C-alpha cells in the first residue's frame, strides 16, 4: 500500500517537473498558461500528499487561480493590442527578440544543473522531519484563541508577517494603479450570454463558499487568504459579467476597502498594547473574537485587492488631458 502511494508520489513528481518544462517550452502562450495552471493544480495535489491542505487550498485558489486569471487577462490584452486576438497561432506579437547565444544558454544550463545537484545534495543530507516548531506550537496552541494550528501561526504567533503580507498586497495594488493610470479604457474580456447567466446563478453560492472557507479557518483548513480568493473570484465574475461596473464615484470606497484589512490589523495590534502588553499580544479571552475580526476585515481587503489587481486601472480615471483635473482641485 505504502509502496503504491510512493509510486504515485514519484509519478506525480515527474509529472510536475514535466509540466514545468512544458510550460516553458510550449510555443503558444495560451497553452503555456494552461500548462502552468495544470502545474499549479498538480502542485496542490502534491501538498495534500504532504499533509498541507491549507497550503494546497491557497495554491489552488491564489497561486493557480488568481495567477492564471491574471496571465490570461494579460495574454488577452497583448493579443488585442497587437490585433492577433483571433489568430490561432498568435505567438510572437513583437518582432522576435534577438536570440540568446547558444553558448550563454549552455553555460546557464550547466550552472542551473550544478545548482540543482548542489541543492539536492544539501537537501538529502539535511535532517528531514527533524527539528521544527512542532513542540513550541503545540505548547502555545491553548493560548492562541483558535483551534487550527496554521491559523494560529498566521494570525497570532507570526501575525506580524501576515500584516506585512497584506501590506505587500496594498503596495501591489497602488503600483498597478500607478502603472495603468493613463491607459485608455480597455474592455475586460467579454463573456457570452450563457456565461453571464451562469455567473448570476453561481454568485450567491460562491459568496457562501468564500465566507464558509473563512469561517472554517478557525478549526479546519481554510482562512482569510483562501476565503479572500474565493470572494475575489466573485468580484471577477461581477466585473466580467458587467453586473458591476467600476465608476469614478467608487474610487474612495475602493481605496477604503484596500486598506481596511491593514488598518484594522494595525489598530488591533496597537490597541492591545495599551494595557502594558506587547504589540500583537491579544488579551486572554479576547484572542478568538479579535482574530475573527482581523480575519474578516483582511478577507474583505484581500478579495477587493485581488479583484482590483485583475481589473487593473483605477476606476473612472480618464487618460489625458482629463488627467490634470483632479490635481487642480
Amino acid at each position, binding site marked *: 500500500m505504502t509502496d503504491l502511494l510512493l509510486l504515485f508520489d514519484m509519478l506525480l513528481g515527474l509529472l510536475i517537473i514535466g509540466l514545468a518544462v512544458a510550460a516553458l517550452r510550449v510555443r503558444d502562450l495560451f497553452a503555456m498558461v494552461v500548462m502552468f495552471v495544470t502545474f499549479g493544480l498538480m502542485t496542490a495535489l502534491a501538498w495534500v500528499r504532504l499533509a498541507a491542505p491549507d497550503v494546497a487550498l491557497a495554491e489552488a485558489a491564489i497561486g493557480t487561480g488568481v495567477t492564471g486569471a491574471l496571465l490570461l487577462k494579460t495574454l488577452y490584452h497583448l493579443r488585442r493590442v497587437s490585433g492577433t486576438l483571433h489568430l490561432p497561432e498568435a505567438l510572437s506579437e513583437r518582432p522576435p527578440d534577438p536570440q540568446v547565444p547558444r553558448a550563454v544558454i549552455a553555460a546557464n544550463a550547466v550552472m542551473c544543473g550544478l545548482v540543482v545537484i*548542489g541543492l539536492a545534495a544539501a537537501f538529502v543530507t539535511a535532517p528531514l522531519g527533524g527539528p521544527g516548531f512542532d513542540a513550541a506550537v503545540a505548547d502555545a496552541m491553548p493560548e492562541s484563541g483558535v483551534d487550527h494550528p496554521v491559523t494560529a501561526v498566521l494570525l497570532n504567533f507570526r501575525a506580524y*508577517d501576515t500584516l506585512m503580507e497584506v501590506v505587500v498586497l496594498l503596495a501591489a495594488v*497602488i503600483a498597478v494603479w500607478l502603472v495603468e493610470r493613463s491607459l485608455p479604457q480597455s474592455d475586460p474580456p467579454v463573456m457570452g450570454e450563457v456565461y453571464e447567466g451562469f455567473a448570476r446563478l453561481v454568485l450567491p453560492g460562491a459568496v457562501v463558499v468564500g465566507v464558509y472557507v473563512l469561517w472554517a479557518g478557525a478549526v479546519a483548513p481554510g482562512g482569510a487568504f483562501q476565503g479572500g480568493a474565493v470572494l475575489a473570484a466573485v468580484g471577477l465574475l461581477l466585473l466580467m459579467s458587467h453586473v458591476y461596473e467600476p465608476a469614478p464615484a467608487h474610487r474612495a470606497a475602493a481605496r477604503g476597502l484596500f486598506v481596511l484589512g491593514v488598518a484594522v490589523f494595525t489598530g488591533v495590534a496597537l490597541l492591545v498594547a495599551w494595557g502594558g502588553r506587547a504589540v500583537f499580544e491579544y488579551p486572554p479571552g479576547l484572542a478568538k473574537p479579535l482574530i475573527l475580526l482581523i480575519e474578516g476585515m483582511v478577507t474583505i481587503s484581500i478579495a477587493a485587492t485581488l479583484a482590483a489587481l485583475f481589473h487593473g486601472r483605477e476606476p473612472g480615471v480618464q487618460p489625458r488631458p482629463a488627467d490634470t483635473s483632479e490635481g487642480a482641485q
Partner: protein
Amino acid sequence: MTEPLQFWMVALLFLPLIGAIAAFVLPRHAPIVGMGVALGVTGAAVGLCWQVQSVGTGTVALGGWGAPLGINLHVDGLSAAMLAMTAGVGAVVSMGAVNTFGGRVARSAETARPRQYFWPLWLLLLTGLNGVYLGTDIFNLYVMIEVIALAAVGLTVLSGSLAALRAGLDYMFASILGALLLLMGVGFVYLQLGRLDFGGLAGADPSGALVAALALMFVGLALKTALFPLHFWLPAAHANATAPASALLSALVVKAALYIIVRLLQHMPAPGEALVVLMGLMGTGAILWGSVQALRADRLKLLVAWSTVTQIGLIFVALAQAGVAGLAHSWKAAAVLILAHGVAKGAMFLAAGRIRAEVGHDRIRDLDRSPVRPALAQLAFAFAAVSLIGLPPSLGFIGKWMVMEGALAAGNWHWVVITMTGTLFSLAYFSRVFAGFLRFDRVEADVPGGVVEQRGRAPMDYAPLALAALGVALGLVAAPILEFLEIGRAGGWP
C-alpha cells in the same frame, strides 16, 4: 511597551504604515501627511538613538511569544544608525519631493497623477526599510524586502516614460528572483535548524544545508543590492526614475539588502574564507566596471547611478578587507561607508534632479553651455562628491581610511590598491561634472554678444545642500559614531 526604547521601535514601524494608509485614502492631503510622517519618523529615530545611547540594546517580542515561535524586533547600534540614516535622508528627500509632488495644485500634467501615488509608495517603502533594520527573523526579512521591492518598483516607474517602465520591469524581475533565492535559503535554514531567528542561526554548527542556504541568500541579496556582476538592472532603473525616487532608490533601497548581508555574516556559522574573497572580488569588479561606465556615461543621472554600483563594490571590499578573521572589525568600516553613501547619494541625486530641472537637460557635455547657473545645487553636488570620493574630513574619508588601515594591518595590500584605484576613478568621473559646472566661456563663445547669466535657484536647493554638508561634517564626529555602532556588540563578532 512602557519602556521608551520599545515605544520608539514600535513607532518607527507603525508610524510610516499608518501614514501610508492615510496618504492613500486621502490623496489630496498626501503631501502634508507624507511630510508630517517623514518628520515624525525622524523624531522617533532621534529618540531611539538617544535611548540606545543611554540604555543600550532593546527587544520587542511581538505578540508576547518571543523567538523562535514569535517574531522579535531588536535594535542595537548598527540598527539604530541605519534607522537614523534612513529617517534623515527620507525627511530631506520628502522636502525635495514636496517641491516635485507637493502642493494642492499640481504643477503640470506630468506630476498630477504621480503625486497621488508617490506618497503612499514612499511611506510603504519606509515601513519596509524600518522593518528590515528592526527585524531578526529571516522569513520576516523576506516579506519586508518584498514590501520594499514593490514600493521601489512603483517609485521607479513613477514618471511613466517608456525607459522608466522598461527599467522598472527589469528591476521587478531581478527583485523577484533575488527574493525567491532568499526564500529558498530560508527553506534550507528551516530544514537544518527548524527555526528562523538570528538567535537560532548564531549557535548552529556548520552543515551542508546551511552552506547552501548561505550561498542562496547571498546571491539573492547580492542581486537585490546590485553587486557586480548582478548590477545589470540598477543603472537604468536609478537613472530613469524621477529625482526624489532616484534618491530614495540609490541612497536607501539598496542598503536594505546590504544590511541583511552584514547581519547574515554576523550570525551564520563560519561564512568561510572563500565567500569573503568572493565578496572582495565581486566588489573589485564593481569598482572597476562601474568606474569605466561612469566615465563613459553621457547623462548626469546615469553617471550618478553608475557611481552607486562602484560604491556598493567598495562596501563589499570593506567587508572583505581582512578576511574572515577580520570581519569582527571590518563590518564597522562597511557600516560607516553605508551611512556615508546613503547621506551623500541622497543629496547627490536630489542635486542632480535640481540641476536637470533648472538647466533643462542633464547631458554632461552640454552642462557648461547653459546660461542657467544652479549654483546651490551644484554646490550640493560637489559636497556630496567630496564624501563619495572620500576627501577629508567627510564620513566617506573615514570609511576608506578604515578600509585601508584594516587591509594593511592584515597584510592585504591588494585591497588597499583597489580602494585607491576606486578613489582615483571616482575623482576622474566626478571631475567630468565639475568641469561642466566651472567653465562658462563656452556659452559666451556660442552666443554672439554674450548672454546674461541666470541664477537657477529655489528654496528647495537647501535640502540637498544641507544633506551633503552633513555627509562631510559627520566625518568630524566619526569617533562617537563608531562607538555608537558598537553598542550591543561588546562581545565582538561571534
